[in-house]
């Protein structure tokens, strides 16, 4: 059964109309040295039977491990209705709904999504999503440099407590644009930026990034940090976990004036864990700087007859109109992921989200209490956490992790590669999905392994 709509006759007709002999010829203008026409590791074709067998084998490699690993992607319960509804044919396009008259349903979903995200973050506006949390932060940095009209500086203060992968992504995207990232260190005992250690005369800088919770799961002193940045005429970019926002003070209320931009990874809201995604990024900001925001924005309006409707709005920022001066080259949003998140949030409601957040926090405390009761396990940081914590083990971490992996258990994220000062330290996570029994399984295995170590 052909799933590709163009028959060879169709192709020939189109090629004749253009005046070329083959599809290959259409790519002639790409210089040969930029082309990689031999994809040796990718087979030219495989039958459906072969593909599904291969994919089953691959998925079996993942196993069904008991997961205490977070570090940016989190296992949460997703009600079955979420993906049942999301995968309906009507939603099944990733493409931007330019034609408002043909896309009212898709546009309304994204509008609802924006409303929910703006509410969660207590900011005025949200965009229709970005690729993932890390690139959303990079976009937020670029946006802050454009939007800060009190400073022409291209310096960004970037805490070391921001996810190391996010920092690498930001660096890759912004350094070619002349933007400098100044690292801010954290306090070794609290696990957060010590407000007293902030430079008194930081000089001109464009923005401060504040992670909440930070990569260690610990809660930063967001109010003091926000006010410090604003006193120095810099903008504030919050990097937040959307589930945590159900119980934490939202970025729009940090300090006296609130963060100017908030962004983060949308995966915890109804997107299953998957290696390589697709996940999605979200971004919200204050109304005053909305024209510097990247990505699509859906607005509500009325048609000629006064009937309400939805449409893409503020398009003059975007690359199909502003070309090289556009606020970003983001065009196709992560529509399907956003649809799932919107349905997920609608099903859970504000109370449901809050219960997920509270239970995740409570499970983290149970886990840490039991783990640190073992000899040779200590909690590293003293400040309050959301649903992740750092523990230090008395024995070499790589050996212990290997032993736990053999028990089909993901014990957490090893920190010593990204943070050499955190030798044998493990970032562990417990969401609402971890039961008392799961926690005991982890504790029992670790006790046995440490006993042998």
């Amino acid at each position: 059964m052909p799933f590709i709509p163009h028959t060879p006759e169709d192709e020939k007709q189109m090629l004749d109309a253009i005046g070329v002999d083959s599809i290959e010829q259409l790519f002639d203008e790409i210089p040969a040295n930029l082309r990689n026409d031999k994809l040796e590791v990718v087979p030219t074709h495989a039958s459906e039977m072969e593909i599904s067998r291969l994919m089953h084998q691959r998925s079996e490699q993942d196993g069904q491990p008991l997961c205490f690993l977070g570090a940016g992607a989190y296992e949460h319960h997703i009600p079955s209705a979420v993906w049942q509804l999301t995968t309906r044919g009507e939603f099944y396009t990733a493409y931007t709904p330019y034609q408002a008259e043909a896309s009212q349903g898709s546009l309304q979903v994204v509008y609802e999504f924006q409303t929910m995200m703006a509410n969660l973050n207590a900011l005025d506006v949200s965009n229709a999503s970005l690729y993932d949390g890390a690139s959303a932060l990079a976009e937020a940095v670029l946006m802050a440099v454009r939007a800060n009209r009190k400073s022409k500086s291209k310096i960004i203060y970037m805490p070391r407590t921001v996810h190391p992968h996010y920092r690498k992504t930001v660096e890759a995207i912004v350094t070619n644009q002349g933007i400098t990232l100044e690292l801010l260190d954290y306090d070794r005992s609290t696990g957060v930026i010590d407000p007293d250690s902030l430079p008194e005369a930081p000089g001109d800088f464009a923005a401060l990034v504040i992670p909440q919770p930070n990569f260690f799961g610990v809660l930063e002193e967001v109010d003091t940090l926000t006010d410090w940045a604003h006193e120095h005429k810099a903008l504030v970019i919050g990097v937040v976990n959307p589930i945590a926002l159900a119980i934490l003070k939202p970025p729009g209320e940090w300090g006296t004036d609130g963060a100017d931009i908030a962004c983060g990874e949308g995966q915890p809201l109804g997107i299953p864990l998957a290696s390589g995604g697709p996940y999605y990024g979200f971004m919200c900001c204050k109304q005053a700087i909305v024209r510097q925001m990247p990505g699509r924005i859906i607005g509500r309006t009325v048609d000629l007859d006064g009937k309400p409707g939805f449409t893409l709005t503020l398009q003059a920022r975007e690359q199909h109109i502003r070309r090289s001066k556009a606020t970003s080259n983001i065009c196709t949003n992560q529509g399907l992921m956003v649809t799932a998140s919107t349905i997920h949030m609608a099903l859970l409601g504000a109370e449901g989200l809050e219960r997920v957040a509270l239970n995740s926090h409570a499970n983290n405390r149970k886990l840490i209490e039991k783990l640190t009761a073992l000899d040779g396990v200590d909690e590293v940081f003293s400040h309050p956490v959301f649903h992740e914590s750092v523990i230090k083990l008395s024995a070499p971490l790589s050996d212990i992790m290997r032993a736990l992996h053999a028990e089909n258990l993901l014990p957490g994220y090893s920190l010593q590669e990204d943070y050499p000062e955190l030798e044998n330290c493990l970032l562990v996570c417990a969401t609402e999905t971890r039961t008392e029994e799961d926690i005991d399984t982890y504790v029992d295995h670790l006790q046995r392994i440490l006993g042998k170590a």
Partner: protein
Amino acid sequence: MSEIPVELKYTKSHEWVRHEDDGSVVVGITAHAQDLLGDMVYVEVPEPETKASAEEAVAVVESVKAASDVYCPVNGEITEGNEALADAPELVNNDPFGEGWIMRIKPDDVSELEQLMDADSYAAMIAEEAH
């Protein structure tokens, strides 16, 4: 043909420039430019006390059709942006050479104005562009 006041100077990028008695210059976009852009929905004016060089993009006019940069016509310091445009961007359409002004600049060297076009040259340029 749109109005092109003879007492003003003009740039290739369709700004008009008026030399004031106090030595400052006032800048806006021409009637012809606003006509091409269509109904304004937003104007981003520069912050006061901003140093700018000639041909640097310092403001943005956004219409229902497009967003365009507004360029600084001379080297100098921007002393004022027209804040009225924040709530009433349509002033650029209705009164481009008057209330629709965009910014005031203190030029480093007033003689730079002599390099700009006079009304006749500007009229000739847009006539040329029309072909």
